[in-house]
């Protein structure tokens, strides 16, 4: 450990001598003249449009129609084994178990188990309209991080009240102590001739259900 401590002191010493004589500005003095808010006439509409831009499937659900929409989305994906992490509303399980033979709540499932799941259905914590982003903080209803990563289909339910107008508003709603995943469309790459291809390692299908109901 002593070598590490001396490296620490050496680097901090170099930093201090490098910046000696430099004016020490304060964080509060950083000019932030950019938009703290980016209001849109139809925030939820913009969110849906921007998510769809990434070639995700986006659906606005009518009040009271969520469980039906969830089941339909899982059918559309051709799923047989579905996972809805602990913490999603009980009504989802009732609807899912009546339709699918294998419904898991993610408790105690390992990576090999996740490989056998066709579709995962979760809630989210925040949506960001201007960028079409969904944020998971992997709390109740969202599962631990691997749950929304390994299966090939992710059906994500976002409540209209969760939609922030832009990145600053979105970040303010989040708790940095939690692990987080910001998702903007399905997994994609532009590594081959800068042509965008959807679907590399993450879920290749992202299906977003936007509901007026509380999650």
């Amino acid at each position: 450990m002593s070598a590490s401590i001396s490296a620490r002191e050496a680097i901090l010493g170099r930093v201090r001598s490098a910046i000696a004589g430099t004016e020490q500005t304060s964080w509060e003095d950083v000019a932030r003249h950019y938009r703290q808010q980016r209001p849109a006439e139809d925030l939820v509409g913009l969110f849906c449009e921007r998510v769809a831009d990434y070639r995700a499937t986006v659906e606005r659900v009518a009040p009271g129609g969520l469980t039906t929409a969830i089941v339909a989305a899982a059918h559309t994906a051709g799923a047989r084994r579905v996972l809805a992490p602990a913490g999603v509303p009980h009504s989802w399980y009732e609807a899912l178990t009546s339709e699918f033979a294998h419904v898991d709540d993610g408790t105690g499932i390992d990576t090999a188990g996740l490989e056998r799941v066709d579709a995962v259905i979760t809630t989210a914590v925040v949506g960001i309209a201007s960028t079409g982003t969904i944020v998971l903080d992997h709390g109740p209803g969202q599962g631990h991080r691997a749950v929304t990563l390994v299966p090939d289909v992710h059906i994500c339910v976002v409540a209209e009240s969760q939609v922030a107008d832009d990145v600053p508003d979105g970040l303010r709603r989040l708790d940095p102590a939690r692990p987080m995943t910001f998702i903007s469309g399905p997994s994609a790459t532009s590594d081959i001739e800068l042509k965008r291809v959807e679907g590399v390692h993450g879920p290749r299908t992202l299906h977003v259900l936007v509901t007026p109901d509380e999650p």
Partner: protein
Amino acid sequence: MPAFPQAAKQELANSQLRHNLANATSTIRHKRAEVVGELDDWAQLREAGAAIKSHTLSNLDTYLERFEEAVTAAGGTVHWARDAAEANRIVVDLVRATGEREVVKVKSMATQEIELNEALQDAGIDAWETDLAELIVQLGHDTPSHILVPAIHRNRAEIREIFQQEMGKVGTPAPADLTDEPARLAEAARRHLREKFLRAKVAVSGANFAVAETGSLVVVESEGNGRMCLTLPETLISVVGIEKLVPRWQDLEVFLQLLPRSSTGERMNPYTSTWTGVTPGDGPQSFHVVLLDNGRTNALADEIGRQALRCIRCSACLNVCPVYERTGGHAYGSVYPGPIGAVLTPQLRGTTSEVDKALPYASSLCGACYDVCPVAINIPDLLVHLRTRVVEEHRGWQSKPMDALMSMASWVLGDSRRLAAAQKVASLSRRVIGRKGTIGRLPPPLSRWTDARDAPAPAEETFRTWWERNRGSDSR
């Protein structure tokens, strides 16, 4: 490795490379311009991005200590590395302590810079690159040529061939009927790497940002390979340059707008992961950060040069650079190519080698890089600053004729009478070499001009003489 002018000459002869690069860079340039144009406050975001980074650098010791404290409190361990060798030793020791013989890697410039893969290999540890482009580079026994898209110099047909020949040697082979459709190539990479993701117990990553206030790290990516590495293994080691710090969580609101739009030309990249230390029951339960200096404090000590440390590795400057577009990244002889590489590399490595001395000259100073830089690094001014340093540190290096030419020109241009006398000589030379008004061949070093271009002959009558003849009484 030859210096830039010679290396560039070789690369220029590769017409496939120039075709690939021209296509790719013009595609990304247009995408960037479109999404940047969507934000009417781009200039203000850019100004804030530059200011946050400058502020952080001017208080870097405080923020490094704060970051260390926050990571430790959240269950992580912080290591400090003065140089590449020390960083590599730390990572090798950490991997060995797990008893594992392989790691999966998230694309990281810092680990490229320290040549971690080679160090791991020397220690008998396999390092698997999982970013598609890095995979192409690794399987092709090649080196990256772009910060964001390291295999930009390869086209789809070449990639197909690499996958077919190489994948089977190190894991799941490419399907026999693989075509050069990008979607099929991506599918082959998915199958090849999934086996490695599910097996790996140790991952190595870099980070795009490190938040001092909270100890959070941020990795911005597209494919999900980052999420795989950051989530599935038991141990995670992140190698982070000390310039990656931002003071507070709120500062990410600026960079998460600047970075994706500048780099891939998207409103937001598909996946951004943030994590703070260790989360019980979710993700790696052993987490290490290696804070890397490796020349960064040298750059920090240069009041003008330090702005290069604001760089967020978006690569927008590469995509607009007319020099990069024609030579590609390999000619720069550094993991950081293009305009930012030309100002960053000589500061990190110093200007002793021929390669590093030539880098600040690898630019026509057209200024396109400064215009697109999301943190307003004045790359053209920095290039000129570093050229001055090279000349002052290595008087006589710049080829004797250049030194002599510059001294003579300085003497002539220091006084109008000397200039007028020199002009008389030049005008006389016209009768000998340039009667037609153009010159087809000049002696070295000016032959570098006339090898491909005609040169103008000096004017028969200079402006100065014309003025004296026509308006003589007006001059003072």
